[in-house]
Every structure is written in C-alpha cells, then in structure tokens.
C-alpha cells in the first residue's frame, strides 16, 4: 500500500510536469525511483520509459481535446526520434555517457536562452 502511494505521488508529479511542459517527466521519475523506491539506475531508466509512454499518451489526449495538437508535426519529429531512441539505448550499453550528458546540458541552456530572447 505504502509503495502504491509512493508510485502515485511520483506519477502525479510527473503527470503535472508532462501536461504543463510537454515532456515525459523522466527527469522527475528517474531520481525518485532511485532515491525513494530503491531502484538501480538502469532499471529506473527503463521503467520510467514505460511510465512516460502512459503519461504522455494521457496528456497528449487531453491537449488534443483542447485542440492544441498538430498530429502531422508530431509524426515528423516523433518517427526519427523512435529510430534515435533505439540507437541511443544501444550506445548506452557500450559508450560512457558522461560527455553526452554535459554537452546535452550545455545545449539545453542554449535552447533556454534562445526561447526567451
């Protein structure tokens, strides 16, 4: 029961971020699974992806009810991303991820600045 409540709390937080920012919520889910529910990092990553698929399907459906979704554009960016995800998961098993993380973080800062200015 306690574990279900913990999962509900993590899911609610992730769902909120997902609906508000158009993301999966993995940035919330993965650390909480590791620190709070005793997951090992890779297991947290894999499990969060399943949770994200469910959450994003729900929030995408809700946004569609508001008329916010452009399905064709979603396909345009989503189909290449599917291929990328498979390549990335394969790379994760053989390549150290540290430099990818740091470059990606720098890219996010640049994108944040680009959106606001």
């Amino acid at each position, binding site marked *: 029961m306690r574990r279900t409540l913990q999962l509900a709390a993590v899911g609610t937080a992730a769902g909120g971020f997902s609906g*508000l920012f158009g993301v999966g919520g993995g940035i919330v889910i993965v650390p909480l699974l590791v620190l709070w529910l005793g997951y*090992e990092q890779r297991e947290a990553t894999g499990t969060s*992806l399943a949770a994200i698929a469910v959450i994003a399907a729900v929030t995408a459906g809700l946004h569609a009810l508001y008329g916010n979704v452009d399905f064709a554009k*979603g396909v345009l*960016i989503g189909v290449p*991303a*599917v291929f990328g995800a498979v390549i990335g998961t394969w790379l994760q098993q053989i390549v150290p991820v540290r430099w990818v993380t740091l470059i990606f973080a720098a890219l996010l800062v640049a994108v944040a600045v680009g959106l606001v200015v």
Partner: protein
Amino acid sequence: MANELAVVAVGLLAGVVAGMLGVGGGVLFAPALVLFLGQSQLHAEATALVAIVPTALAGAWSQHRYGNLQLREGVLLGALGVGGGLAGVAIANEVPEHALRVTFAFFLLVVAFQLVRRELRPEESRRRGELA
C-alpha cells in the same frame, strides 16, 4: 523544407539522447517545433507529447531486452499520474503564451542543472546509480 529537415534532425538527436540518458530527450521536441516550425509554445508542447509516446515505447522496448524494465510498476506509475496530467494540461491552457515559454525555459535550466549534478557527484554515490 529546410526547417522540416531540421525538425527531423532534432527528432533523431533527441531520440538518441533519450535512449542514452533515459531522461531529457523529449524536452527538445517543443523548442524545435517553436523555433523551426513557428508553433506557439502551447501547441508545440502538446504536439511534442504525441512524439514522446512512440519514442518512450521504443526506448522501453529496448530497455526490456536488456532486462531493465519493471513493466507492472512502470504502467502503474503512469496510470496513477493521470490526475497530475489533468492539472498540468489545465494550467498550461490558462497561462499566457509568454509566461508559459519563460517557465519552460526555466524548466530547461533545471533539467540541465540536474543532469550535470548527476554526472559530477562523488564517485561513492555515483556507484549506486551508475549509468554506463
């Protein structure tokens, strides 16, 4: 046409990042749709979610093959997040466009900080959560 190709390239890159890091790839979708295809922040976020579903499914399937997926808890976690999702979508639709964009940009900075912190923490605590 060049803008569509840029979006395809961002999609591929975001997928690789999502697969490698397990988190964060999806945050690139909405900015790409705003910056290259001229969508509003709200519509870009909503459209990004459509792209996240198959990407996460593909990632989960790949992780499953490596034995890294607790399917029952993952699906339960997602299903229990519906209330949060309702609230998030409702708020996103109420907030003015510019405020949503600025908040999203701030969220990107938090994600960047979180990723860097995860990489740079001391070796002892890293071992528990080693990614690669």
